[in-house]
């Protein structure tokens, strides 16, 4: 992101309102025209500082759970020629933040997440005699294949499949919202433009609109 350019535009804008009026009647006393005192955000959950955000709740997952979670995240989004793996860009930390959030849905999901991570290790021990994080790729995939799509999962894997899907959704959010993930998708935007030209000709051509 060309943040420096963005800040320059913002700086130019901030300078504009100070232009003194050069016509019309005489300006009133500036003290009378400033409006009420500004004290900024209260810093409460419904009135947080939007410009410098922070997470205000403690994270709940234990180190061991995070190790299992990282292995699962990387099974879902491994490194390839385009971008790094999910754990390399902090996805387990995001999922921990999400599952620890003080909202009803998240509280329920924490139970589902913890139960799922425990199931993953139990299943892994049962099949291979080792916890999930210590399995090789093909062993991990053997388990993942059984739980990766709920509609096609065997009855005994329906529950774990729901857990897997939740983690896949979260891993995708965590991964594709990072710079690395956005670059992988070739997202272009969040840069200030002097003018808007619409889609380039190659896009219109691709769509049969040119």
């Amino acid at each position, binding site marked *: *992101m060309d*943040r420096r350019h*963005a800040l320059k*535009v*913002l700086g130019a*804008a901030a300078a*504009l309102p100070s*232009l003194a009026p050069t016509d*019309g009647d005489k300006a009133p006393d500036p*003290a*009378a*025209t*400033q409006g009420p005192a*500004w*004290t*900024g*955000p*209260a810093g409460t*959950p*419904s*009135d*947080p500082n*939007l*410009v410098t955000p922070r*997470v205000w709740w403690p994270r709940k997952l234990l180190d061991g759970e995070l190790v299992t979670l990282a292995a699962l995240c990387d*099974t879902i*989004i491994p490194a390839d020629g*385009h971008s790094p793996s999910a754990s390399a860009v902090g996805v387990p930390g995001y999922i921990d*933040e999400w599952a620890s*959030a003080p909202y009803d849905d998240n509280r329920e999901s924490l139970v589902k997440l913890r139960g799922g991570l425990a199931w993953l290790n139990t299943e892994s021990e049962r099949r291979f005699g080792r916890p999930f994080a210590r399995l090789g790729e093909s062993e991990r995939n053997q388990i*993942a294949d059984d739980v*990766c*799509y709920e509609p096609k999962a065997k009855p005994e894997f329906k529950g774990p499949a729901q857990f*897997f*899907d939740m983690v*896949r*959704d979260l891993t*995708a*959010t*965590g991964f*594709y*919202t990072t710079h690395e993930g*956005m670059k*992988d*998708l070739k*997202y*272009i935007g*969040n*840069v200030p433009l*002097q*003018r*808007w*030209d619409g*889609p*380039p000709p*190659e*896009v*219109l051509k691709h*769509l*049969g609109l040119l």
Partner: protein
Amino acid sequence: MSNTQTKRVQYDAIVVGSGAGGGMAAFQLAVNGLKVLLLEAGRNYDPLRETPMFQLPKDAPLRSEGTVDKPFGFYDATVDGGWRVPGEPYTVAEGSDFMWWRARMLGGRTNHWGRISPRMGPYDFKPRSRDGLGIDWPLTYDELEPYYDKTEALIGVYAHDQSLENTPVSRHGTQLPPPKPRAFELLTKKYAAPLGIPVIPAPIAVLTRMQDADHWPAKLFPGNPLAQRVVRQSMRSRLACIYATGCGRGCSLRANFQSTTVLLPPALATGNLIIVPNAMVREVTLDQRGRATGVSYVDKTTRTDRHVRARIVVLAASACETARIMLNSKSALFPNGIANTNGLVGKGLMDTVGAGIGGQIPMLENLPPHNNEGTTRLHMYVPWWQYQEQRAGKLDFARGYHVEFGGGRDMPDAGIFWGLEDYTNGAYGKRFKEEARRYYGSFVYFDGRGEMIPNDDSYCDLDPTVVDQWGIPVLRFHWKWSRHETNQASHMVKTFAQLIESMGGKVVGKLETDGTKVIAKGGQIIHEVGTVRMGDDARTSVLNAHCQAWDVKNLFVSDGAPFVSNADKNPTISILALAWRTSDHILAEMKRGNI
């Protein structure tokens, strides 16, 4: 600055609420020389210092996913608001379903709104005369047209340049050129045309170029050098859109319309306006002769009661909050609330009909990478197009809807690729990443926004027992959709499914066409209007044709409460135009010595 001194003086006008209606009224009265006190229930909010411009989802809690504290995502401009305001409950009557959005902050909902600004058309003012349903407005399109023109020129609205049936645009060049359409919008237009569905530039309150500060001030405020000066200064301080960073966050460049960037700064610059935030209005006070003397409010920061006086009172606290204040303003003269002699305050509550579906469009897969952001608001939309069919009795609902739609290669945000498993048989691993690249940007959504006809079962009154943390009785909502709304919602989703299929796409999820199931809840579209309606007859309305209370001559309403109907046209631009017209009436009546 301290306001304690100034609170002892008698103001010319008190305006309650600082959103679209309150901001416009305060601005108009202040530039015309009145001493105005503006009371806002929320805190002071400064978009220049507080807007998160360019911040990324990854830097926000939960990657900016919506929560009960920040329902539209972390970076949404709304603070201290949403479907729940801590300490300020409301209730819903048994058998009803209603959601009430509030924004307790300076500028109210104008900080985050969709900026969608379609004018109401000639039909919309006379619905009963056309089809026998609902109520006619006490004014015509022609009467409000000059105020639409002036409002657009003042705030900046881009739009289409040709009027369609009941979808008027300015005849006087007051609108700005629209931005070029995005790829998904052009594709939709192409495939909508054979279905007879028009896709045209949307009317949006965003500056596609800087305003002409040398032209408009003199044109809008002839003979008023003060107004011309502050408006000129304001227009010069606003930049054009930079086509990046979500409009719903607000804009520190002042490129879109917010009361806090467009109306309140020039109003303050007159030196005639005092703004008091954290002022929760309890009631309008009355003298023996039945004239409003001022308002009582709770200073939230100290939890103390205050009273302020003025020659006139303008309520613009939002349609429901305004009704609440009036219902709570009880006296010997008005035991059921101020100006509520006929019991109509709170009645006539309307929202907008909402229903929508998404589609996956294979043609949009694997598009060459490109910027899809634009103004981040609609560039194109679909105005209601089946007036003829309705006239011919071919549809099972009486009123129209418009279509808002989006899609394409937007900034990845929380929830991206949720549901992708259904397209990929549960892909994970390297294949997941390949599928993500393929499907990114290939989804579109269509949302219908339609007219609701007022009915006797949809209204708000005071809850008999519940009070908020300031001790003020709270609103209780009653709600029912009629078949006109549910049938319309059904028509929306069927039409969108047809459109998605004609684009070679597939509807996301299982298509549900039962209108009673797909229709949004009352209040959910956040277009509540109609609770203090205007009219020609004091027996059937609360306000006269100038939004002046029939029973209390110096009490006015300038938000969405005076609306008589709720056309599919998003209400903000009409609230602004109506508030300007009401302000002109106030000034004229004061000049004549009537108030």
